[in-house]
């Protein structure tokens, strides 16, 4: 369990270090890393001893704070990007020239 929580804490830290493009790509792909980071409190933490839990929580909260900052930066960058209207896109494969 401790390892599990540590993995998630590490994942959150990894996310905080992502570039804006990487972070958006991870969000878009429902990347397992993102999912792991947001699953940080599974399993129930009360099963851990208080000292370990406190250390991991501090670690995790710090990582989340960094993530929050990163998301704010990404939001600002997104605001600078050109936006297209939400037009529905048509799709259809090309006609095969072989007939």
């Amino acid at each position, binding site marked *: 369990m401790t390892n599990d929580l540590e993995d998630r804490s590490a994942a959150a830290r990894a996310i905080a270090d992502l570039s804006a493009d990487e972070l*958006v*790509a991870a*969000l*878009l*792909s*429902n990347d397992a890393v*993102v*999912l792991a980071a*947001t*699953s*940080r*409190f*599974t*399993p*129930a*933490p*009360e099963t851990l001893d208080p000292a370990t*839990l406190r250390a991991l*929580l501090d670690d995790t*909260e710090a990582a*989340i*704070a960094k*993530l*929050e900052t990163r*998301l*704010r930066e*990404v*939001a600002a960058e*997104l*605001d600078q*990007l*050109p*936006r*297209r*209207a*939400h*037009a*529905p*896109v*048509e*799709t*259809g*494969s*090309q*006609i*095969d*020239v*072989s*007939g």
Partner: protein
Amino acid sequence: MSTRVSKRTVPSDVTFTPSLSRAVLRDRVDWVAIAATCQIPGQGEEFSAAYRGASLEHPDEVRFLTNVTSNMQAQDREAEAIGILRSALRRDQRVPEAWHNLGSLARNLGRYELAEAAYEQAARRWDRPMSAIGLSEVRLVMGDVGGAITSADIALSGLNERDPGWVDACLARAFAALLDGDLERGWAWLDARLLRPEYAPLIPSGIAPWTPDTPSGAHVLVWREQGLGDETRYLSCIPDLLRRGYRCTVRCSPRLARIISRSFPVEVIGPDEPVPEDVDTHISTGSLPRYLRTTPDAFPTTPAYFAADEARVAELRAHVEPLGHRPVIGLSWRSAYLTTKRSTNYPYLAELRALADTGATFISLQYASNQHELDAIAEYAGLEVTTVGDLDLTNDIDGVAALCCTLDGVVSVGNTVAEIAGAVGARVYQLSNANAPIQLGRRRSPWHPNTELFSRNYDEAWASPIAAIADRLRHDLA
């Protein structure tokens, strides 16, 4: 974009399950904003994913749901995409792109009636003629040649050469014309394919295109295009050029080089070899019919234009003879390149069952196959299919051609095997979609006199023409 991350304290009674985590993540991310920054092409996956997120926030927004499905066709997920679009269209029927995409997805799955209905709904609501192209395509498959011509003409009248749908509209018009018996205009429309970007590196630069007015004696470069089967089919026009007194260099697929060299008095070069300096003019293999097959009687009646390697025929005959009792029939049941749309051209393995009752010995001519697939045919169709030696059916086209010459017949779908077998004059029983434009609506292949077509209507299973082939085998080879 909202970036507020809840500083959650350790919950005592809540476990953050993956789905709850997903919800937390969703709360923090403005998917609609991200979707608005996604550009296609080149970001198909991200574009679709962003709209998936946006749809979770706005489940009644049909534009978003339509874009969720935008990359599913490329992933062969048509059935899933149809479900999403039908759900969207129950909420709002006003978005023509949703109807159009539904039509394209249904067409890929061979559900032509649904495709036609969806394209019609799109056409009523759209100021763009894109759905008319799809309508032309499905109406042709359904045997409505007049409707296909009308739809293609509507599309062409609303587009110009710079529009994305122009080439497809021309091809739809071409195929309708070919089935209507208007070969001259059909082949001319078909040349619009040369405008596609993938043709740019193939077309020789600085050399004049060949036309029938090119003086006899000129040196013509004939260059390959399309698949190996198409290339083989159109090479049937080479003798016509030679009879007119042209000197020919053929830039061909490497796999065809030997048999072309043996069959025609021409120079042969590979796709990457430089064009000889004294070449005067050029034409693609696929454009030869435009000038040389413009009337029904312009197609040759001689059974073969490819000459197999006699030594290899003898060698392979020694392998075939001990296989079992006659007749020995070659079999090919699919292409190597399979998408949802292309798969409708080929039977399920179980549909080969009728062939098991013919008394023939079947050997595989199927390229890009393996023993597992032969085992599956035995299991699902009760049909034993054997192999001949270690012949490489994918790369050794010269060997395949020689093998075809040792057989009593070849049963094949429309693919490279059918074309190679037809080109060496083998007796071919070919499965074909009814109204296949390239067959010009005929019951026998116009390209290969010894090839008989066994056609399936758009709403029939392949088992039907396969049963007809089994009957014919029993009759012809008794």
